């Protein structure tokens, strides 16, 4: 039992942090640092790293609000394509191709990427962006607009089958789990960034002759956010070790709630400036809202936790 990052993992986080601080075009930097290769097996040009390294990376990516189909490219697809033995695609991912994966019903839309995949029940196919299929909903638009201006969403049309059968189903479950874990870490990183920014704001800004951060109401809200984040983080680390549905979903539920709570605190304590696009808080506010329903809702994940706890299959959806 040693429940802490290794010195190497802590150093990896610091390296990523420093690199992301100093670039406006993060993806090439991430490719250079080997982030897309993390979960790709060594024999396909990857680093064969642990899910815990993925969690470390995703926290930093969330901290810097890096856009893109991150959970897909860094988590779901490496494991899916490994399980389904797609060496060429893995090599492509390892070298930095961004790819997006749709998995109805929980992940019905893709983010803009260079490659698209579609996984339904037990068939994995390549795919291509398509107008919205259902004619009686909102007018079809591609891309669809998200609350997060960095997210452009697409419906996909399946094209060429890559794999079929029960093996796909099992691989899909593992891929969904890993994408969920990645999203949890990304949410925590985004939330920590909002808390840090708000603490800095509260120290600098004065009102009624005092720094805002000396007001008890401000202090106590920030303390509550800090506690929520501190307690959610170990769940994410443990889930990276066990990868059970129970632990992954528990981590994701706690991370998403802590992030939403931190977002509200951050906006409230900033006041009007936090409500603008030009102030950096908005990057995380909108990202966190979008991630809140990405890779399964809170309802879905709470249902998975309860199903595991009661060892039966009761869930609503």
């Amino acid at each position: 039992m040693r429940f802490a990052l290794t010195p190497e993992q802590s150093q990896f986080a610091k390296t990523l942090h420093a690199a992301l601080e100093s670039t406006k075009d993060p993806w090439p930097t991430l490719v250079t640092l080997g982030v897309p290769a993390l979960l790709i097996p060594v024999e396909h040009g990857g680093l064969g790293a642990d899910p815990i390294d993925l969690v470390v990376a995703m926290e930093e990516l969330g901290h810097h609000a890096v856009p893109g189909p991150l959970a897909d490219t860094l988590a779901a697809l490496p494991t899916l394509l490994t399980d389904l033995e797609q060496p060429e695609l893995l090599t492509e991912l390892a070298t930095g191709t961004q790819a997006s994966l749709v998995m109805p019903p929980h992940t019905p839309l893709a983010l803009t990427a260079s490659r698209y995949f579609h996984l339904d029940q037990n068939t994995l196919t390549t795919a291509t962006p398509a107008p919205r299929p259902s004619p009686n909903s909102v007018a079809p638009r591609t891309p669809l607009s998200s609350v997060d201006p960095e997210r452009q969403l697409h419906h996909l049309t399946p094209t060429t089958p890559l794999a079929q059968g029960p093996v796909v189903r099992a691989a899909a479950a593992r891929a969904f789990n890993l994408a969920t874990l990645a999203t949890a870490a990304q949410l925590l990183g985004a939330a920590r960034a909002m808390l840090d920014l708000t603490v800095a704001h509260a120290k600098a800004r004065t009102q009624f002759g005092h720094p805002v951060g000396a007001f008890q109401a401000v202090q106590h809200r920030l303390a509550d956010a800090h506690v929520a984040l501190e307690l959610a983080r170990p769940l994410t680390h443990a889930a990276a070790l066990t990868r059970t549905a129970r632990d992954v979903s528990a981590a994701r539920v706690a991370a998403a709630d802590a992030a939403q709570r931190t977002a509200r605190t951050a906006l409230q304590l900033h006041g009007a400036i936090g409500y603008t696009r030009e102030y950096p808080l908005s990057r995380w506010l909108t990202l966190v809202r979008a991630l809140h329903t990405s890779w399964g809702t809170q309802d879905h994940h709470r249902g998975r936790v309860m199903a595991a706890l009661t060892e039966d299959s009761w869930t609503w959806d």
Partner: protein
Amino acid sequence: MDLTLDAEARAFRAEATEWLTEHTPARLPSLDTAEGFAAHREWEHSLAQARWSVVSWPREFGGREANLLHWLLFEEAYYAAGAPARVSQNGIFLLAPTLFTHGTDEQRERLLPPMARAEQIWAQAWSEPEAGSDLAAIRSRARQTSGGWLLSGQKTWSSRAAFADRAFGLFRTDPDAQRHRGLTYFLFDLRAPGVTVRPIAQLDGEPGFAEVFLDEVFVPDADVLGQPGDGWRVAMSTSANERGLSLRSPGRFQATARKLVNLWQQNKNPVHRDRVVDAWIGAQSYRLHTLATVTRLSEGGELGAESSVGKLFWSELDLSLHETALDLLGAEAELDSDWLRGWLFALAGPIYAGTNEIQRTVVAERLLGLPRSPR
């Protein structure tokens, strides 16, 4: 204790509902875009032509002399019909009450009718970079000149200013006076020489508010509201209106709660039942609380610090209505929709019109009589 409506009230509501059902347009573009602003202005113009834009005003200014209850019924009918947000809101709900109380006859006759017809749309210009919740810290100044005043300084978070015609705000006219003293309430033209408006994009990307820079902007004496130096007192009467009865009438939350129940009915997930029920109960209790306030006011009571109770409640209610809806929407929640827009709008509720932190302090000190907190 009587919640029944008399025949006159029922007839008034029926007339409003009938007109609104017939005339309410399909969804307009956001009023924070140039296109949407124009469309909303046009809608309010037609509202005014049917004398529905300012029902509580005297007939001479375009109203129907509706009492508070009738006004509430109109608002319920308005939001129940799905009618658009009011682009004239700052003028009608924040400036007009102040004009009625502190304006001259000349000002009322000159300013109210074009406001009612949405020919002049007003922006508020309260905050400054160093004076957000702490309005008394205002630094923008006005100095007297022949026939009027020259205004200089910077206002910010001025809602609607990107597209509006005119604005109202406080300026320091006595540079030696401290804090609340020596402030004057001015009305000014947003297109006057010396005014620069820099739109600010909100979370949704649209310029819902703006910075307003003033450089020796001339304002005639006729556009001082109340006495010079008396601006704080004049503004505070507006501020109670902003928080209180008129800014957020129960109708909009009742309509949203009803939509939320309908949304829940689409799949009746019991896991979400309680939050839906609680949101509906919240809208209902805000309605009833407002009816109690209307009764009290109609019998000579005053609103005062009670308005903070309402503001705290509706701003939290609005958020929980929309957050619940987004949870019901599931994976689609992040996509552009009325619910998502409503959520973004609701997020600002605990901040504007006096932050909820300030409102809690007002409730604690003025309604519960707790000692003044160190600040």
